């Protein structure tokens, strides 16, 4: 584990269950935030990662599953572990399809909850690292000049310097110079590396890394 300490967010309307979970998680050194309803959690604005959500399915107001559906539609979602006292197959299928890390039926073994939480936190850290890498990539990409960006587009499509020079109406030497700049600014070790970066930038073009509830 690396980086900032993880926080587990518990949303359950039963205070004694909430208290018990808090005690259990603190005993293994996890930070915990407790909420009785989804609304309380959303209103608190506490969505600093890394961490995960422990969510009771049946909650007053908005239900855990409905909330999870909303989370699923948002990018970079916080991993969710569902807990319920009415475990039924239909519900668990829906929860897992929506990307839940786990679905635990009360009463569950404390170790099962801890395992699920560890898995969720790992997933969140991985995602955060990915997010950070993407942010870095975009920052580098933003440092490229318009001409360098053009050259990069051609390079990642596998064009030779000569072709690019002809296309852009510049000398081959100029292309070579731009290409060197691109590799340096992007921190790419090889053309293959650059291709991967370009890919990443393209596929995440419309997403906003780090956005949280």
């Amino acid at each position, binding site marked *: 584990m690396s980086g900032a300490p993880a926080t587990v967010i518990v949303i359950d309307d039963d205070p004694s269950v909430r208290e018990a979970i808090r005690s259990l998680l603190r*005993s293994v050194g996890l930070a915990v935030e407790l909420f009785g309803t989804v609304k309380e959690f959303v209103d608190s604005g506490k969505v600093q990662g890394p961490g995960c959500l422990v969510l009771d399915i049946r909650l007053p107001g908005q239900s855990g599953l409905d909330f999870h559906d909303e989370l699923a539609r948002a990018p970079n979602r916080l991993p969710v572990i569902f807990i319920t*006292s009415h475990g039924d197959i239909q519900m668990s299928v829906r929860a897992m399809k929506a990307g839940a890390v786990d679905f635990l039926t*009360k*009463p569950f073994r404390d170790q099962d909850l801890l395992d699920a939480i560890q898995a969720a936190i790992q997933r969140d850290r991985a995602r955060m690292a990915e997010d950070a890498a993407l942010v870095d990539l975009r920052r580098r990409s933003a440092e490229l000049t318009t001409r360098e960006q053009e050259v990069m587009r051609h390079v990642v499509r596998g064009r030779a310097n000569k072709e690019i020079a002809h296309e852009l109406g510049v000398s081959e030497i100029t292309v070579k110079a731009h290409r060197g700049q691109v590799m340096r600014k992007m921190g790419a070790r090889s053309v293959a590396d650059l291709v991967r970066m370009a890919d990443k930038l393209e596929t995440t073009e419309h997403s906003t890394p780090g956005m949280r509830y």
Partner: protein
Amino acid sequence: MIDAERTTGIEPLGDMPWGTHVCMFYETKDDLLYTLARYFRAALQSNERCVWAISEPVAEADAKNALSRIIPDFEQHLAEGTIEILPAHEWYLPGDRFDMQKITRGWEEKLAAALAEGFDGLRVSGNAFWMETEHWEEFCQYERELDGALFGRPMMVLCTYSLHRSRAVEAMDVARAHQFTLARRRGEWEIIETPELRQAKQQILKLKNELEERVLDRTRELVEVNQRLRVENTERERAEAALAKARTELARVARLTTMGVLAASIAHEINQPLAAIVINSGAALRWLTNEKPDLAEVNAALGRIALDAHRASEVIQHIRALVTEGKSEHVDVDINDAIRDLVRLMRGTLREHRAVVRLALRRDVPRVAGDRLQLQHAIMNLVSNAAEAMTGVKGRREIVIRAATDEAGNLLVSVEDRGRGLDPDSAEHLFDPFFTTRPEGMGMGLAITRTIVEAHGGRIWASPASPAGTVFRFTLPAAGAAPR
């Protein structure tokens, strides 16, 4: 005493009614005396006046001898005129003239005198001596008329004929003129009936048989009706037993459905504290076995475990109360308490529908006599119904349960929702079994509720709520009050 049977003293005749007109053929004088002595003895023993018109071969001395031999106080009877012995010739043919009307009148006078003196009637015997006389035909007519005249009078006549002196033609005439024809021959009796009598007897027999048949038919009908009634009675008893059984069954099913509907809620209510206990015990162990054990945390976790265990046991106590009070016994029910318990058990269902319950229970409501579980079931159906009616409703899904007293002093409970409300068509059939507006509904809830409310002497109805939704109200008579 006209209808009463008289003892004739003549063995083959036995008892005969007044109006009997018998002829007897005799062979010997002894046959005649034997018969007549017994005939008159029976009369004297039955308070009858006796007249014996004698003729050959019986002399007055013969008659008196024969009578006194078997009648101990004969002399006294003779002296008092209870029995009169007179010569037949003088009675029937005074001056050798046969005057039928005079003779008839004579008998009537004697009968009237006898009745006036307190006798029951008149018993007569006359010995026919005129077989050889020229008055035979007139006499035969007299006998026939006498036969008719005797009808309805307290009088009995025995005419005696000598067999030796009668010719066949005469015997036939005689027999035809009498109701019975007897013959005594050397101590032996013979009895000959007239065809009319036989016919009459047969007619009577036929009527009697018909009557008996009718009686039998009627009896059979009565027996059948009786049988039918008994069968109907048995069927009614069976139907009543079946009805009682069905009621018990309904109560049982109602209890089971209550438990079934509540099962999910109950599971939730028990699983919550159990989950907390398991997690707390895990936490406590970890606080203990950590590198730096934190006893304060262990202590706190154990304290929470104890609380949660109590909480679980409370839930179980509620369920036990639900089941044991489910025996359809009518007890004093505190409806507010019953409603609070019910709502507590329905938390899961309500949460699922995202409905909240607001209780407005007046403290001074009357207690009701009833089955606590059934009443809870009735209210539960209304609450479930209210929650379902608000599916898809934006905003606060509130159910208001009220308990109050109506103007007649009855308990009034209402369950109000903010749902879609009733359409007029549905309102009419709301409480019908199997009526439902929901595709997944069974349509039994409100029907069961109505059955329960009515079984408790109450009434249920629904009306639109303001500004939206429906309100179901029911009344229950206060405990101790007669149901309305």
